């Protein structure tokens, strides 16, 4: 009975994903793959043993490896690898797993039927001697990674109480030589494909709330123009191509409007527009530069960057204008606001002593913390569960993506082998 619903749900997902991939060209394997490195670990990790799944048809432990990597990367788990087979049925030797230091044990069976792979798994609490969940899902072989991420999401949620962030996607801009690619990848950087490629720069990708479209800024008309592209069909429209620069798209939470920055009247000012380019409205501005709008989750408030005070700072106002209030006060350069999904945290880039670093501000208390070391970090973007922030970083002269937990406890990088990677945007939950 616990089987039916996830199975069906995932099956529908698979079809949707097929349509998506069918409309796009996959990247050749010669292009950049992202690689994950663990740079730090947090305290209070849950030790979890992941046994080998029974009857792995590929014989390469791919599914357990993906689950282990997801959990390890989250910073909340310490994965204890094991060569022992653990099945999803039968008794579990709690004393044995406790002796290995495991509080939780994941085991399961992989099987193949009708050309599809079925993952059945059980999560067991060895300290209490109870099985927490026994579940399963089926996937076509090309979606086996997504299926494994969904298992990891389930484990993550059952053991932490927080929705798992793994079966989500990210958008970013990769550059190889003179080619710019807007790429979409799984949250771990795998399965990347180019949604758009061009010889002119692309910046500022932004996911629609339903995950079907991405807005971005392309320079392909020799100037910045805002586009909205449907991922499944690759159809795109120029939502804002006015005189002057058009940039900084942000979706309203209902997915109907975009906030954008336009310079059609000389100064860079915030406007809102329907996603089909109609009904353009200017939000009354005050400074020469007002840009990087970002909606609060309830759609009522816009956070934005303004140089009204003489230096770039983050401000807030009602989405239709009105009274504005300055939000950041420390430092003389605070840009790129991002709001957590619960609306409680503001992340941004601050320049302090010449270093550009990721900060997070608890809006209710005004408590500010630095989450990254710089020196040239950019573009913070919250995971849809609000527990992680992805940002662009640089080390050794190479641009890559990094992820830090909002408590600063864990961090990892997604390293491109061949290209510079910038401008990350973490996509929404899609279930």
């Amino acid at each position, binding site marked *: 009975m616990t089987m039916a619903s996830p199975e069906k749900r995932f*099956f529908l997902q*698979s*079809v949707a994903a*097929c*349509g998506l991939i*069918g*409309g*796009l*060209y996959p990247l050749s394997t010669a292009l950049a793959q992202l690689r994950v490195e663990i740079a730090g670990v947090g305290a209070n990790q849950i030790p979890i043993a992941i046994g080998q799944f029974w009857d792995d048809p590929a014989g390469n432990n791919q599914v357990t490896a993906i689950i282990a990597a997801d959990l390890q990367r989250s910073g909340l788990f310490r994965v204890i690898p094991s060569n022992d087979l653990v099945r999803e049925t039968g008794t579990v030797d709690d004393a044995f797993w406790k002796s290995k230091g495991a509080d939780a044990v994941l085991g399961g069976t992989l099987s193949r039927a009708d050309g*599809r792979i079925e993952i059945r798994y059980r999560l067991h609490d060895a300290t209490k001697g109870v099985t927490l969940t026994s579940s399963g899902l089926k996937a*076509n072989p*090309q979606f086996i990674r997504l299926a494994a991420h969904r298992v990891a999401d389930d484990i993550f949620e059952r053991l932490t109480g927080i929705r798992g962030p793994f079966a989500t996607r990210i958008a970013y801009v990769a550059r190889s030589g003179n080619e710019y690619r807007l790429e979409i990848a799984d949250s771990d950087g795998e399965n990347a494909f180019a949604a758009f490629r061009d010889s002119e*720069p692309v*910046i*500022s990708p932004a996911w629609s709330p339903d995950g079907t479209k991405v807005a971005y*800024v392309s*320079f392909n*008309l*020799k*100037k*910045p123009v805002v*586009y909205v592209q449907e991922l499944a069909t*690759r*159809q*795109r*429209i*120029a939502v*804002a*191509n*006015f*005189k*002057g*620069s058009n*940039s*900084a798209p942000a979706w309203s939470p209902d997915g109907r409007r975009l906030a954008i*920055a336009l*310079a*059609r009247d*000389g*100064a*860079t000012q915030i406007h809102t527009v329907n996603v*089909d*380019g*109609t009904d353009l409205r200017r939000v009354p501005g005050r400074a*020469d*530069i007002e*840009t*990087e709008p970002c909606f609060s989750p309830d759609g009522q408030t816009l956070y934005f*960057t303004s140089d009204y005070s003489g230096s770039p700072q983050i401000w807030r106002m009602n989405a239709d204008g009105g009274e504005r209030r300055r939000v950041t006060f420390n430092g003389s*350069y605070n*840009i*790129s606001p991002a709001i957590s999904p619960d609306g409680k945290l503001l992340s941004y*880039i601050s320049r302090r002593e010449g270093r*550009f670093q990721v900060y997070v501000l608890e809006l209710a208390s005004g408590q500010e913390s630095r989450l990254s070391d710089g020196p*040239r970090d*950019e*573009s913070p973007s919250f995971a849809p569960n609000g527990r992680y922030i992805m940002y662009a970083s640089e080390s050794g*002269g190479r641009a890559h993506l990094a992820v830090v937990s909002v408590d600063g406890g864990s961090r990892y990088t997604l390293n491109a082998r061949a290209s510079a990677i*910038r*401008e990350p945007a973490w996509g929404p939950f899609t279930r």
Partner: protein
Amino acid sequence: MNGVKILISVIAFALLGACSTVKLTDKAPPVEDRNASSASSGGSSSSGSSPSTSAGSSGNTSKSSGASSASSASAVDPVNDPSNILSKRSIYFDYDQYTVKEEYRSLVEAHGKFLASNPDRKVIIQGNTDERGGSEYNLALGQKRAEAVRRAMALAGARDSQMEAISFGKEKPKASGSDEAAWMENRRADIVY
């Protein structure tokens, strides 16, 4: 129930089959340009035809006054004549600054006057920044630089319809490298005919 499942599987499999075999052309995706009329100058960036003026007498283009006239006897477009101030089309800025420095006033004014007396000519003013800081804020800062140049040219007589100020931010640096020399070169607005 099982039958339905199998049927759905078959459909899904057919879909997947189609997915894996579709060859996608690499042509540019269709672009619906809803605002083409309001930004038509955006696409036509650079050096157009030379001016159609044919009145020729003094082929003398002095550095100070040549700016105000396109009626040169030679076929050389004054904006491309190395002896003409109009051939200089880059204005440099200080870090985080957007005011047109004194040393570039005469240059900007010359372009403004040239446009005033040549209403068929148009320019794009492209603002740029160095690589430090965020993409979007730099885009806005580059815009502010281009706009400062545009306003100064408007004061010298150029019409709004002849000019478009845009920004590349830090995305199209002329000089690569992460030193002050490269940064100086990239804090720049270019007047592009």
